[in-house]
């Protein structure tokens, strides 16, 4: 009985470690490939450790790699993404917090219906709004601009940020709001003095969720931007799929890591909130 138990534990750890290798392998390959030279890549194999480390591929990916006609690397795309992601995240999160507050604590006739309407926006396949949005952005002079992308991400981010905040605020006891109203506080004072100070966890979850979503978006980027307004995901895809004569896998991998770095850093620093965001709403049972 005891031996059987021990065997079972060993098998258990074996499977779990094997799975860890499976998840880590691509990351390992990306990193090692990015510091190899092309000669070494051709001579060696996928999982061999680099014999000598060179950061040429990194500098090339950042500054000189070709992404189509231009050969300025990913740096421009990277900064486009930064310029896009910060306002888009802040605006969509703020709107979500206010919506959630109203939908949970200041319900009025018709607010439930409004919530249901907004909620459906979480689920629509965005393909269905691409064509009208492209046209509309053109009318407002926002086509192919970072501002246009910010607008699109805010509009289609509202649904999930509202859902997150609303579900969190439903859990704040109504009695707290009643007490504050008896204490003479109004709509805004209750929000800023009572509700918002209690919201740190959900604010973190939503900020990280929105950051990850918007940074990693490709669909809106590729449809609504061009040239010098494209975000990093589009830049990476252009770089990796540009048909140059020689495929430089080390540059591709360095570029992929550059594109992934911000979200990886966030994941490492605040993984707890990231996981909470992913599982929020999905687990009720």
């Amino acid at each position, binding site marked *: 009985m005891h031996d059987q138990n021990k065997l079972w534990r060993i098998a258990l750890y074996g499977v779990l470690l094997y799975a860890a290798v499976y998840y880590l392998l691509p990351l390992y390959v990306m990193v090692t490939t990015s510091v190899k030279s092309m000669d070494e890549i051709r001579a060696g194999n996928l999982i061999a450790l680099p014999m000598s480390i060179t950061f040429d591929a990194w500098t090339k990916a950042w500054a000189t790699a070709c992404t189509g006609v231009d050969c300025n690397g990913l740096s421009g795309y990277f900064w486009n993404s930064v310029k896009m992601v910060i306002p888009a995240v802040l605006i969509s999160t703020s709107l979500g917090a206010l919506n959630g507050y109203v939908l949970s604590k200041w319900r009025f006739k018709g607010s439930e219906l409004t919530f249901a*309407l907004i909620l459906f926006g979480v*689920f629509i396949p965005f393909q269905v709004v691409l064509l009208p949005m492209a046209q509309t952005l053109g009318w407002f002079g926002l086509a192919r601009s970072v501002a246009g992308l910010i607008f699109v991400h805010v509009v289609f981010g509202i649904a999930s940020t509202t859902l997150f905040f609303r579900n969190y605020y439903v859990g704040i006891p109504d009695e707290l709001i009643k007490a504050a109203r008896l204490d003479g506080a109004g709509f805004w004072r209750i929000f800023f003095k009572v509700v918002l100070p209690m919201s740190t966890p959900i604010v973190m979850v939503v900020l990280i969720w929105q950051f990850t979503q918007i940074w990693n978006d490709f669909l809106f980027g590729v449809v609504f931007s061009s040239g010098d307004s494209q975000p990093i995901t589009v830049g990476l895809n252009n770089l990796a799929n540009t048909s140059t004569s020689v495929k430089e896998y080390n540059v591709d991998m360095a570029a992929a890591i550059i594109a992934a770095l911000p979200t990886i850093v966030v994941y490492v620093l605040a993984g707890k909130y990231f996981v909470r965001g992913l599982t929020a709403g999905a687990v009720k049972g």
Partner: protein
Amino acid sequence: MTQFNGPAQYGFAERWLPRLVLAPSFLLTLVFVYGFIAWNGYLSFTASRLLPNYEWVGLAQYETLFANERAWVAVKNLFIFGGLFIGGGMAMGILLAVFLDQKIRGEGVLRTLYLYPMALSFIVTGTAWKWMLNPGLGLEKLVHDWGFTSFTFDWLVNPDMSIYTVVIAGIWQSSGFVMALFLAGLRGIDDSIIKAAQIDGASLPRIYWRIVLPALRPVFFSTLMILAHIAIKSFDLVMALTGGGPGFSSDVPATFMYASAFTRGQMGVGAASAMMMLATVAAIVVPYLYSELRGSRNA
């Protein structure tokens, strides 16, 4: 409902502020979600090609769509990809969650490792797997170096197999997510149920199979819903990994829609295919949302 069940509101501010605060989001949603769906629906009944053209053509674009071989490849690929992606991701995620639930040392680290792909863009994932799966220098060469020189692995450039590379990368990215959902569900199960079953003499696999997993039915359905939703919307991964190729062998509805609407000057067909995608998602989501909302109202 003649009377509304909510807080009493006094004065102009309390009565109108909540509505005012909600108004921008409400209007944005109304216009940019529902208005645009209607607009796109309208486009799908017009002769639009490179540019919008509001000449009414009835169902002609849908006829073109259904007569298009490439569209059917995309639908077939969606079923292959969706089925394997959901099945594989589910199986792997549940297995890892159950294993991780056995009071594992270093659980936190393992969990972090399993889930990090979820933080990546599908474009990054696609680029990485494209390199590893490429027949020249990737996995194939590795296995050759190990001495199995007859080994071939050319799925990425093989029209019959290219969609399966998307499955591999998709499962890699999403199975950790399934694990996280089920692990959270497992942790929510009352310990005393398991203890009671142990006292009844049930073996561990039996306890999981008969008691724990059935208790996770709601998690199962939520996960199924989310994965199905990811599958139908998946665009980035295919674009980065295969670009829909070779040829259009690994096209999925999302890439088909993009190509029709934005690169091949068939806006009407693109709009029609987007409507079909919406209908598919709605068929899955609406019943789910309905039961969820009804459930929460009763709770």
